[in-house]
C-alpha cells in the first residue's frame, strides 16, 4: 500500500515536471555544463585523433565556410522575401516594419539514439537570443524549429517530427501546407493540408512560407518527392492533399546548427 502510494506520488511529480515547460527547461539546464564539457572533450579527441597537424585547422576553416554559406543563403532568402513583400506593399502607402533576423550558431549537445533524427538539444537558449518557434538550419536548409527553450539550452524538433508544424510553400504553384512527421521511407517527411486542386511535380523546391512571425519566408526546406509510382501527392479528402518531401538538410552527422531568430 505504502509502496503503491509512493510510486503514484513519484509518477505524478514526474508528469508535472515533464509537462510544465519552465520546469522542463530548468531540469534540462541541470546537465548543461556536463554536456558542454563532454562536447569539448569530444572536439579535443577529434583533434587529437587526427594524424596530420593541419587537418583540424582545415576542419575549422570548412566549418567557418559552411556557416558563412548558411548565412549567405539566409540573406539571399531574406532578399527574395523582401522583393516579394515590396511588390505587395507597393500598393499601400503605409509600409509595415521590416523583419530583423538574428543568426545564432549553436552546438548540438544531446541527441537521443532511440529517435536519432526526431529531436535534439542545442547549447544556446533565451540568454543568447534563441526564441520559441525559431527556424533551425544546417547544410543551408531548414532542419527543424525550436519547440522548447530554456535559459541556456533549447529543444529542436526536426522536420521528421510531427511537433515541428512548419508552414511551407511549394515554389511551382505557391501552394501552402504544413510540414512535420515521418513517412514509411526514413529519408522523407510529410507535408499535409495542401490544397488538393493544385498540381505537384517531383523535384519542385519547397521553402518556408513566411506566414509565421517567427520564421522568415523563402528558407530552403527540400524538394517534392514521388509518393508512389504514378503520383506525387495523395488526396486526403475533399479539401486537402499530402505529399512527401525530401529534406535538403542532412538528418545526421552535424555538430552545429544555425538558429534564425527574430531580433534584436
Amino acid at each position, binding site marked *: 500500500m505504502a*509502496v503503491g502510494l*509512493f*510510486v503514484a506520488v*513519484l*509518477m505524478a*511529480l*514526474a*508528469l508535472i*515536471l*515533464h509537462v510544465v515547460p519552465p520546469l*522542463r527547461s530548468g*531540469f*534540462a539546464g*541541470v*546537465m548543461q555544463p*556536463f*554536456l558542454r564539457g*563532454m*562536447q569539448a572533450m*569530444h572536439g579535443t579527441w577529434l583533434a587529437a585523433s587526427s594524424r596530420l597537424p593541419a587537418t583540424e585547422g582545415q576542419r575549422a576553416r570548412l566549418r567557418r565556410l559552411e556557416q558563412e554559406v548558411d548565412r549567405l543563403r539566409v540573406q539571399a532568402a531574406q532578399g527574395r522575401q523582401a522583393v516579394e513583400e515590396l511588390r505587395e506593399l507597393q500598393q499601400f502607402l503605409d509600409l509595415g516594419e521590416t523583419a530583423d533576423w538574428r543568426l545564432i550558431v549553436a552546438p*548540438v*549537445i*544531446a*541527441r*537521443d*539514439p*532511440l*529517435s*536519432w533524427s*526526431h*529531436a*535534439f*538539444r542545442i547549447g544556446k537558449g533565451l540568454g543568447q537570443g534563441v526564441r520559441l518557434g525559431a527556424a533551425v538550419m544546417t547544410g543551408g536548409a531548414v532542419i527543424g524549429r525550436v519547440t522548447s527553450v530554456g535559459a541556456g539550452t533549447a*529543444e*529542436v*524538433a526536426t522536420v*521528421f*517530427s*510531427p*511537433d515541428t508544424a512548419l508552414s511551407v510553400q511549394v515554389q511551382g504553384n505557391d501552394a501552402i501546407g504544413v510540414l*512535420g*512527421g*515521418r*513517412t*514509411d521511407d*526514413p529519408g522523407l*517527411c*510529410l507535408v499535409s493540408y495542401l490544397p488538393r486542386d493544385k498540381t505537384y511535380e517531383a523535384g519542385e523546391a519547397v521553402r518556408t512560407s513566411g506566414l509565421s512571425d517567427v520564421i522568415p519566408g523563402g528558407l530552403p526546406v527540400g524538394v517534392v518527392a514521388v509518393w508512389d509510382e504514378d503520383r506525387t501527392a495523395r488526396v486526403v479528402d475533399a479539401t486537402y492533399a499530402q505529399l512527401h518531401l525530401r529534406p535538403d538538410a542532412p538528418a*545526421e552527422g552535424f555538430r552545429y546548427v544555425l538558429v534564425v531568430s527574430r531580433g534584436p
Partner: protein
Amino acid sequence: MQSAWWMAFAFLAALVETGMGNAGIPVPAFLAAAFCLFVITANRFLLLPLGLLGLTLDIVLCRGSLLTPLLLLAVAAFAARWRRHGDCRLRVLQALPGFVLGLGWVWAAALMENLPRQPGAPFPLAHVVGQSLAAGVAGAVALPVAVAFYDAAAGRLGLPSYRRVQQSEGGAHGA
C-alpha cells in the same frame, strides 16, 4: 557516503548514456546502473532520486514521454527477481539481464513514443527491431562493465558489493 556514491554512480551512467547517444550508439547505461543499485540495495525508496535523475535524462534527450521513470519500476521488479533467483557472483552472467534491459528499453520507447504520435510515428518496426538488437548487445556489455566499475569502487570505499549481495543474505542464490 553510501547514498552519495550511489547517486554519483547513477549520474555517471546518465552521462555515459548521453555521450554514447551523441555518437549514435544506444546504450542503456542508466538502466544498467539502476539495475545494479536495485540488486545491491533492494530499497524501493531509491526510486525517487533515480526517477528524478531519469526524468532529467529524458528531458535532456528531448524524449516525449516518461520513459525512464516508468521503466525504473520494471527494472526494480526485475532486479528483485534477479537478486533472489539469478546469479550475481559470475560477472559474465550479468550480460543476460543487460541484454534484456536493452531490448526492453527500445521496445518500451517504441510503444510509448509511437502511441500518441500516429501518424508520422518516429519508430517504424524495422527500425525498432534493429535498434533493440543493438541496444541489447550494448546492454549485455554495459551491465557487466557497470558491475565491475561499481565493485571496484565499492571495495575501496567499504560499501556493499554486487558480487557478494547473495552471500550477505545467507546464500539466497538457488533458493
